[in-house]
């Protein structure tokens, strides 16, 4: 049987400063939590003012940041989900559309529960390889083991929300090379490369 300390820690971490929560944590967990907290503080400083989630607990928010960045990481063309402000967007949407709250909270807890059972760690304490092992079980709807069905449903909707947050950011819209939402003096139709791509042409041209 697992000690209750982890679940207790999860609750405490959600409501009190990390330093106070450390009393019931193992040294590895403390280090991971402190590293996470430092990273968050560093990001907050870089952005000018610390973001204080209105819906997520601190632990949930840290989980959201890691999870969203696993879904949409930085690559050669643009930054990551958290670079584009996706976690802040998600926090806003939880308040704006409260119907989403329980599924989000429960889904994050479900992910922690999976990691707990498998690695005896919370999701944010897991190594990158361990996190990916969990996501591999959830992220491919056609191949999900029924035992992970609830996690997969949560992951699917979390992925949708991550995508909505990322691709509607300035960074995301530029990455997509969306070129509209601007006034044109004249509508000339589509350029020839676009027509050729589809194998179509304008009548008489």
């Amino acid at each position: 049987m697992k000690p209750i300390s982890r679940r207790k820690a999860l609750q405490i971490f959600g409501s009190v400063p990390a330093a106070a929560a450390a009393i019931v944590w193992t040294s590895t967990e403390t280090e991971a939590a402190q590293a996470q907290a430092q990273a968050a503080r560093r990001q907050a400083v870089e952005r000018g003012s610390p973001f204080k989630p209105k819906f997520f607990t601190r632990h949930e928010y840290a989980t959201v940041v890691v999870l969203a960045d696993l879904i949409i990481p930085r690559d050669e063309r643009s930054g990551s989900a958290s670079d584009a402000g996706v976690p802040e967007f998600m926090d806003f949407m939880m308040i704006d559309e409260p119907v989403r709250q329980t599924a989000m909270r429960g889904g994050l807890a479900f992910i922690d529960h999976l990691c707990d059972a498998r690695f005896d760690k919370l999701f944010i304490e897991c190594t990158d390889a361990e996190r990916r092992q969990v996501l591999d079980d959830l992220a491919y709807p056609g191949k999900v083991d029924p035992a992970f069905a609830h996690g997969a449903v949560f992951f699917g909707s979390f992925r949708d929300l991550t995508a909505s947050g990322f691709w509607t950011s300035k960074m995301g819209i530029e990455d997509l090379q969306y070129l509209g939402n601007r006034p044109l003096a004249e509508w000339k139709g589509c350029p020839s490369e676009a027509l050729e791509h589809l194998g179509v042409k304008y009548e008489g041209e």
Partner: protein
Amino acid sequence: MQIIREPKIYDVCIVGSGAGGGMAAKVLTEAGAEVALLEAGAMWDTEKDSKMFAWPYDSPRRGAATPERPFGEFDGCIGGWDIDGEPYTNAPGTTFDWFRARMLGGRTNHWGRISLRFGPDDFKRRSIDGLGDDWPIAYNDLKPYYDKLDQLVGIFGSIENLPNEPDGIFLPPPKPRCYELLVKQACDRLAITCIPSRLSILTRPLNGRHACHYCGECGRGCKIHANFSSPSVLLPPALRTGRLRIITNAMAREVTTNENGLATGISYVNTQDKREYHVRARIVVLAASACESARLLLNSKSSRFPNGLANASGTVGRYLTDSTGLTVRGYIPKMSNGVPHNEDGVGGMHLYMPWWLDNKKLDFPRGYHVELGGGRRGIPSFPFMSHIERYNGVGGYGKTLKSDYRRFWGSVLSFSGRGEMVANDDCYCEIDPGVVDKYGIPVLRFHWKWSDYEIKQAKHMQDTFRGIIHELGGTPLEAMQSQDEFYGLLNGGRIIHEVGTTRMGDDPKTSVVNKNCQAHEAKNLFIADGGPFVSNADKNVTWTILALAMRTSEYIAQERNRLSI
């Protein structure tokens, strides 16, 4: 509580500032009438209030819907199917969703500007298939008004000479988007008519209004008035006469009448101070929307009119129809990895499919048209590409997923059917015996039932749209709904084309108004919204509401000059 009565007696009091009310205000003020126009919602100035050119990241909500704006927070229409404090009810076992706008211009702030004339057959369906009823007027009675409307408001389109899709006086249509050409190719192979759409958006300057700048966001309200809405096109000339008084935040309660059974004005609740006011007028024009006008009449009860005003026939609220509607989306692999370019165009499709088949050879009696959407048209907004596994076949996460979003964005097409239902005895609205809104006004209770005609038509839409998607080499994003789910037919009211509740006819026993939209029972009471429609063609109703309202208003002006009313 004391009712506040203004001393002035107006020539005309109009209820509603949308298509019908705006047109009545324009025609009647220009004919010399002093007009009071009541609007339940607030003032709206699109030049100031429109969110044209906003980006999703300008808001923490990224364009998502809000309770006041179900089509997204940047949308130009305040209202929705659920309005706080203004309920309606459904009879047990039935569902009808009632959309209302609450703002100057009403629902002309919400629509695709799809402006289709009803055709000659659409006025005489009973003569053709024995179902429903014929109108007491024919296409030729309305044609001159459609013509004037085209020139007044502006509409683009192409001359096609199709028998039941009358051509108008058109501005040039915009060139199709590239994927629309792809759809046309497929339609040509499938023998489905696919032609330039007919939208009331200016592709050339007209009557002092600018031409479109192709930002594709008509739905947000156009700051340069390049598309049609009542406040952009109809109310300014009415205001310039100096004879129009617009009273906003005025929720009409009832039409008042005198001992002769004539309308004397409108009593309304000011939604801000909650007090009751009375506007007196020699003529009353209801243009509050088909169901709202029916509600007003049903709530205008007196000892002389125990069933409500203009309702001796018992037909007020009856013959309620909406367009049938469903959408099928398909992923089209050929469109993935698209060439980046600006596909916005006008705020709607550049091509569409009018009804192309003969119902005599089909197992359902009425047709539908097809609206086309997709591609890289429109600003990426919330929600964005939900269920990525429907595109890439797997789902996933990480860099591969990120590049999949790029690759597949813009590779979806949507086909939306908008069809004609046949009025039936099970679809109507009445006053709920126990429920009032927050102003104390009794609310509507809806009854709704699709017949086999609509359900079979929905199946045909599904098969057709999936056929086009397959012809394009694509895959539908969702499986077809079952017969028990009416093949995905949306609830009545979802297409927001409800009409018929105060239908016109020559016989006062079976209709509410005559062919001039004048109440059989009260000669100074007229209806200028979709209520008088005898049938609901497979065409968006606004253009016909506008043409009818123009005709009705000219009739009012003419009869007023002859002192017959």
